[in-house]
């Protein structure tokens, strides 16, 4: 972590409010480039809010930098090319049901296309790569409304992958995925990181979060700890934030969190 000079994403003194409630109280967090970081914490810790702030999707106080550049000053299009986002809870509660899977994935190419220009061969190639990597290619001509929750989630992941951005932010990407596809998701993330990309994900599954490179632990709108997933201090912070109701063990070369 110390070898990387510029963090991919950096939050400095970030405060955010939703309605009248202060949700983030001065977050300072530097996420290393070319690595996979997981953000964890109990419900209401502000994980999703922080992710949205770092994606430039939520007004806030303080600064967010993308590879040292202020996110607020970056034009929307340039930001969208470099920073992809996969939101929580699927596609707009059914309003996207009539879109075909291929067209949904092609939306990920919008930041790269000139306005009103037809998709280029490069766009089609990126969409095919993305849909194949989430095993959604076979459904490309089906409407989103005909897919199950897990299948939808894989299409939406493909949409985010199709952006081919340097940084990919994902808010609870494992929702609705069965264990084999959770494993597939992890392989996809590992491949992205091996390719030099940065992945940041809010995760509820602690064992999955411990498979990441670094883990940021949050509670009540504050960052309690950020460190390597393998570090004992990270494990202590995790156990502490969940009131010592979980214990972290080493099983078959993996860290897993078990209820205590």
């Amino acid at each position, binding site marked *: 972590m110390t070898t990387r000079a510029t963090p991919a994403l950096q939050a400095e003194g970030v405060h955010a409010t939703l309605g009248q409630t202060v949700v983030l109280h001065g977050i300072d967090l530097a996420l290393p480039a070319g690595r996979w970081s997981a953000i964890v914490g109990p419900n209401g810790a502000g994980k999703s809010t922080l992710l*949205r702030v770092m994606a430039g999707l939520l007004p806030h106080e303080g600064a967010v930098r993308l590879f040292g550049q202020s996110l607020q000053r970056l034009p929307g299009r340039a930001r969208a090319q470099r920073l992809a*986002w996969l*939101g929580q809870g699927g*596609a*707009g509660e059914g309003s*996207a049901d009539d879109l075909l899977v291929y067209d*949904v994935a092609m939306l*990920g190419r919008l*930041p790269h296309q000139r306005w009103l220009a037809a998709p280029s061969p490069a766009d089609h190639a990126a969409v095919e790569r993305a849909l194949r990597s989430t095993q959604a290619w076979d459904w490309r001509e089906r409407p989103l409304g005909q897919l199950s929750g897990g299948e939808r989630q894989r299409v*939406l992941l493909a949409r985010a992958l199709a952006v081919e951005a340097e940084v990919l932010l994902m808010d609870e990407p494992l929702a609705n995925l069965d264990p084999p596809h959770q494993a597939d998701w992890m392989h996809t993330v590992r491949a992205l990181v091996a390719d030099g990309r940065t992945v940041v994900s809010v995760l509820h599954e602690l064992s999955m979060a411990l498979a990441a490179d670094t883990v940021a632990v949050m509670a009540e709108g504050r960052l309690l700890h950020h460190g390597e997933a393998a570090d004992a201090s990270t494990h202590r912070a995790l156990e502490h934030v969940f009131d010592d109701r979980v214990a972290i063990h080493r099983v078959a070369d993996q860290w897993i969190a078990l209820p205590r």
Partner: protein
Amino acid sequence: MKLQRRRAPLLALALLVLSAAALLFGLGIGSTGFQSVLAARHDPIALQIVWDIRLPRTLGAWLAGGLLGLSGAVAQGLFRNPLADPYLLGSASGAALGVAVALLLFGASPSTTQWVVRLGLTGAAFVGAVVAVLLTLALARGVQQTLRLLLAGVIVGVVLGAVKDLITIQSADILVALTGFMLGSTGLVGWSACALMAIFGAGCLLLGWALAPVLDGLALGESTAASLGLPLGAMRAALVAVLALATGAAVAQTGLIAFVGLAAPHLVRSVVKTTHAWLLVLSTLMGGLLLMTADLGARWLIAPQELPVGVLTAVLGGSYLLWLMHRRSLRGGR
């Protein structure tokens, strides 16, 4: 596999062919029947009947229906609600109020052919519709919050409707004329009205088509659309403008015609699953065909009398939606 993708252009072609066929029928419907069309070559009166009355009103029905279909598709995409219709932002009540005020000022009926009065009434309806939408926007403090926009639309609709009722209570003699407007009719659409609707329609369709990727993005949710780097605020405002202008242009010429804007996008979606760019084009064509066919029915069913076409679309559209709900609940029950 590629079938879905080919369906959209095929449907467009089918709708155009059917529209052309319906247009031919429309030329033949009237008190003098199809003979006028046959006699038009050598009989100047027959030519006038076909060219100056039947053709513009049939074409006008198509154009007004197209405008409503387009704004219905825009409304449903913008509000991410399949039950949204073009009148959602208060434009219907605004137009009705505009006409009521104009009737009060001119003291005339909307069936008058005096062009100054016609222009006054059409203009009042258009201005009323657009002002109502602006009022809704002001109440909702912009276009950013969809739910607030919907609520503001309902409130503006109710309040303007009440003002219109107050005016009609004060001078009951405009009631009949106003009812004619509220029911919707294509009877007075002439060439100038057709030209106006065609210009508005082309402009709105072009703008809507250019903004269609925003609607696709919004379908995936607000934050996903924002993450794609789209200037959502400006584009939403432009889409609301399309909605207001297209609805206003249709309402000003043909009065309040129910259900076309709601049903056209539904019918399209039941046949083809596609992007909003195609959906807008297809809904325009579908709306045109729907209203033109309904207009033929209104002229033909109890000939030589005429039904107000708005009544017919309400009955047909209502039955269609009932059937749709019934089919959905059957599917859901399985």
